[in-house]
């Protein structure tokens, strides 16, 4: 399956297909040279001297010794290709071995090998190749040796780089525990994973090597007369460039076309093989998540969320009133559908990351969004300010109001104005959200200056104030620290300081304590709780951990497979969960001091978000499922001040 789709992706790339065609034609023709009806390429007929192309018997003319150009070109290409490819093979083999051994054993072996490679790379490679040929003497074989040697460093470095990343992976340890020897680990476990890198390096250097072979022959150091190769033909033709330009031009053209073909093919192969390029790294995301054109139109005409799909108007958050009372509900999300469009071949399908999510966050409240990975909780958070990358994300439906203003489809200037200013984010790993090259004080100050336009000195002062506020000890000194100089807990405090920089109305915290130790987590939770109460900021706290949400939040929204399945206060949900998923999720978390309790795991896996069932999305894992659950989509219904998406919950049960 994987191989099949790689082929298909390759052929989507027109240029790469052209490259493949050129290379194939050249390979077939030069391989077939002995059986083609060609005259002897070295047969000198002086009467044919510098015959122009199109002459009888000599379609491409003849050179200054009257030798047939077509025959010499084909035989010459054959020699050039043979030398170039052999040099590539030798450089790839030797270089890859050096790289893989250096990475695997590390230490002094790595040092010795790689410093040797560095020394090779310290010389301009063409000069080095010339020097090697000068020592060994002119000739095709020596040219081949020289070109192989100067190209070894490229392979050694690339392969070492790729292997170093793999050697520390746990499967290498696991292979040792399975009783595999070093060599079995090296060639059985590591090499298959490094092969794509070797192929990528080959595809990008083979064109070079053919050029270098031609270069040496052009200088008379490679192929010796009368043997033809493309470089020597070019060199010889140069003498008669004015009287018979075709003699030099034709081998030049062949070199040009061949190398272009190889490079196009190589680029195509690399796009297919390189996981970094494959992941769409070259597609630059838009400044804001794209909004579906149909939704845009509906938003403009004012009927984005149809009344029929609206969730329990009298449900949680009291009177939402269509966003008119932004005074009490700064953030209101309704029927949000953010989908990821994935392409396979010519068809595209939607991964419904969020599929009708609604919630409100009143002023000064803390709302927890609880869910497992893939439940859509983070996508919901990022959608608020259009931070879901497009491609592949697109907002298909819904409404997000901030103090009454619609954010979906809002101009990018408005979103930029709100980002980090009125609505701030705290992420799970502050190391990835902070710039490692800028001091933490500068990063906080930057956010202040960007939105408040104050002086550099004032911003710095404010940064220090904020660091005090988030209880970073010795803020006056730490203001000049770089992120890597701080511990995980301190970095997260900096992340919170950045979020607080412009006194936001809403802070969205996405698993801010998941990467921290429990004692540090307790400190950060306490800090967030204090800040929420003292600053009157609304908090959206996203977590997979009901315990953490319990400590901090008033209300909680439980998400499953892109939907809200239940909402209510923390106490209600803890004491009396309505939805079977919530109930079972609580039952499968081990709790301290409760070791007699048997864990009842939820069997199975959540449904794939691009292949969702018609009815209840939890049906396949549910212990009280009925046939009716699978028949039609289940709506989120109000039960007093709570909501649940389950047909088995009685209207009166709440």
């Amino acid at each position: 399956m994987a191989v099949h789709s790689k082929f298909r992706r390759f052929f989507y790339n027109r240029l790469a297909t052209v490259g493949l065609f050129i290379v194939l034609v050249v390979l077939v023709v030069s391989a077939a040279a002995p059986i083609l009806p060609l005259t002897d390429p070295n047969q000198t007929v002086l009467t044919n001297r510098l015959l122009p192309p199109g002459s009888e018997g000599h379609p491409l003319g003849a050179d200054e010794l009257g030798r047939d150009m077509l025959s010499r070109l084909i035989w010459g290409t054959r020699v050039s290709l043979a030398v170039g490819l052999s040099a590539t093979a030798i450089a790839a083999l030797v270089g890859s071995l050096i790289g893989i051994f250096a990475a695997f054993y590390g230490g002094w072996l790595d040092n010795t090998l790689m410093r040797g490679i560095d020394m090779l790379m310290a010389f301009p490679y063409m000069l080095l190749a010339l020097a090697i040929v000068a020592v060994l003497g002119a000739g095709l074989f020596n040219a081949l040796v020289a070109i192989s040697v100067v190209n070894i460093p490229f392979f050694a470095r690339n392969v070492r780089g790729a292997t170093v990343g793999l050697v520390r992976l746990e499967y290498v340890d696991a292979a040792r525990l399975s009783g595999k020897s070093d060599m079995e680990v090296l060639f059985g476990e590591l090499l298959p994973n490094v092969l794509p890198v070797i192929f990528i390096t080959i595809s990008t250097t083979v064109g070079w090597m053919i050029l270098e072979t031609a270069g040496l022959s052009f200088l008379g150091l490679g192929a010796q007369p009368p043997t033809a190769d493309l470089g020597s033909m070019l060199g010889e033709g140069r003498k008669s460039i004015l009287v018979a330009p075709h003699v030099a031009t034709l081998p030049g053209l062949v070199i040009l076309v061949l190398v272009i073909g190889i490079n196009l093919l190589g680029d195509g192969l690399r796009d297919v093989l390189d996981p970094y390029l494959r992941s769409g790294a070259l597609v630059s995301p838009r400044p804001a998540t794209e909004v579906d054109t149909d939704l845009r139109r509906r938003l403009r005409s004012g009927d984005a969320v149809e009344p029929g799909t609206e969730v329990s108007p009298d449900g949680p958050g009291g009177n939402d009133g269509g966003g008119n009372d932004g005074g009490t509900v700064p953030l209101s999300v309704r029927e949000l559908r953010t989908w990821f469009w994935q392409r396979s071949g010519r068809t595209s399908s939607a991964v419904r990351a969020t599929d009708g999510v609604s919630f409100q966050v009143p002023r000064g409240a803390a709302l927890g969004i609880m869910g497992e990975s893939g439940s859509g909780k983070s996508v919901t958070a990022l959608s608020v300010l259009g931070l879901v990358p497009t491609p592949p994300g697109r907002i298909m439906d819904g409404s997000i109001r901030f103090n009454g203003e619609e954010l979906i489809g809002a101009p990018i200037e408005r979103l930029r104005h709100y980002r980090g200013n009125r609505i701030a984010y705290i992420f799970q790993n502050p190391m990835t959200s902070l710039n490692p090259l800028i001091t933490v004080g500068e990063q906080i100050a930057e956010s202040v200056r960007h939105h408040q336009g104050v002086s550099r000195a004032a911003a710095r002062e404010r940064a220090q104030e904020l660091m005090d506020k988030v209880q970073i000890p010795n803020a006056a000194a730490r203001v000049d620290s770089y992120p890597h100089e701080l511990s995980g807990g301190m970095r997260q405090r900096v992340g919170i300081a950045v979020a607080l920089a412009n006194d936001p109305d809403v802070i969205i915290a996405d698993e801010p304590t998941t990467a921290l130790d429990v004692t540090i987590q307790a400190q950060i939770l306490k800090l967030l709780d204090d800040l929420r109460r003292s600053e009157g900021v609304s908090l959206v706290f996203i977590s997979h951990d009901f315990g953490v949400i319990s400590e901090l939040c008033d209300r909680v929204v439980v998400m499953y497979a892109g939907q809200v399945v239940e909402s209510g206060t923390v106490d209600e949900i803890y004491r009396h969960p309505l939805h079977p998923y919530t109930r079972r999720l609580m039952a499968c978390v081990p709790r301290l001091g409760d070791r007699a309790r048997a864990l009842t795991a939820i069997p199975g896996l959540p449904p794939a978000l691009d292949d969702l069932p018609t009815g209840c999305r939890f049906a396949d894992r549910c212990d009280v499922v009925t046939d009716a659950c699978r028949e039609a989509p289940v709506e989120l219904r109000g039960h007093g001040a709570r909501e649940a998406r389950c047909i088995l919950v009685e209207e009166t049960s709440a």
Partner: protein
Amino acid sequence: MNASSAMNNEPLIRIEAVERTFGGARRFLAPPSPLIHAVNGVTLTLRRGDALGVVGESGCGKSTLARMIMGIIPPTAGTIRYRDTDISSLRGADRRRLYRNIQFVFQDPQSSLNPRKTVREILEAPMKKLLNLDAAARERKARELMDRVNLRAEFLDRHPHEFSGGQAQRIGIARALAVDPDVLILDEPVSALDVSIQAQILSLLKELKSDLDLTYLFISHDLAVVDYLCEQVAVMYLGQVVEQGSVGEIFESPRHPYTHVLLRSVPEPGSHRPTRMELSGELPNPAALPAGCNFAPRCYRATARCRGEEPDLRGYGDGGHRAACHFADDPVPPPEDAITERNA
């Protein structure tokens, strides 16, 4: 059945005064790298049929300890014995023989499976290399293992990327069980999994332990998980065991202030109790450990004695409860004034 209860007390792994340092090497044209004591004099015994949990926060040395037992890194001092063999410096065939008895389950289920191998290749490698089983026996055993960890036998021909995290961890467990080991070292085997999947794996581990008469050394930062799965627990802080004993004793009546704090820090579902913050400050720099008790700079009970004199790990009662604190005779939970009320 008397014989089996006697066997149940047999020590399988004895870790004695084990130390491991990193760094400190002289470097060319640079000052020596700082010397860090990752594990600093740990003594532990793992008895047959036990499940010993090793808990602690990041940097406490619990994973280093696990990797020393497996011989992935050698200790700088001390000995580790399996039954009567010193295994801290085994090499080649001797070490491979050890892997028939001790196996390892890794934290990250995806990165512990080679993406280029099929499940069959992954499961059969230890049977072939360590047990010299023939092809038919390997096939039979691979199917048995898949059944054991509740995966379908058809999955044998798939590659790791086709599995979810929980399924991949089942494969990791099956691989560890392929040689019928006595002891499993489990390094945070559920911390990368979602809660609903975590429960599946924990139930499986509990079931396997009683069905196959296994002994577990279970490394975790999650106290509740250790409470669920283990009978014994050792609490580590900065490379040392600060308290150990039965799970009931340690979690209900801890004697070390750090254990108190650790237990108090675990968020409790459904309780709107005040958020607490007993521990001021962070871990001290492991390259410049404080004199005296390592925990003193963050401890609510620390006195001048604690800052000058390092406490020994001493036994309390006859249940094997040991703690390294000058005040372990008179344990006191964190004072109330360290608990901040919600100013609601």
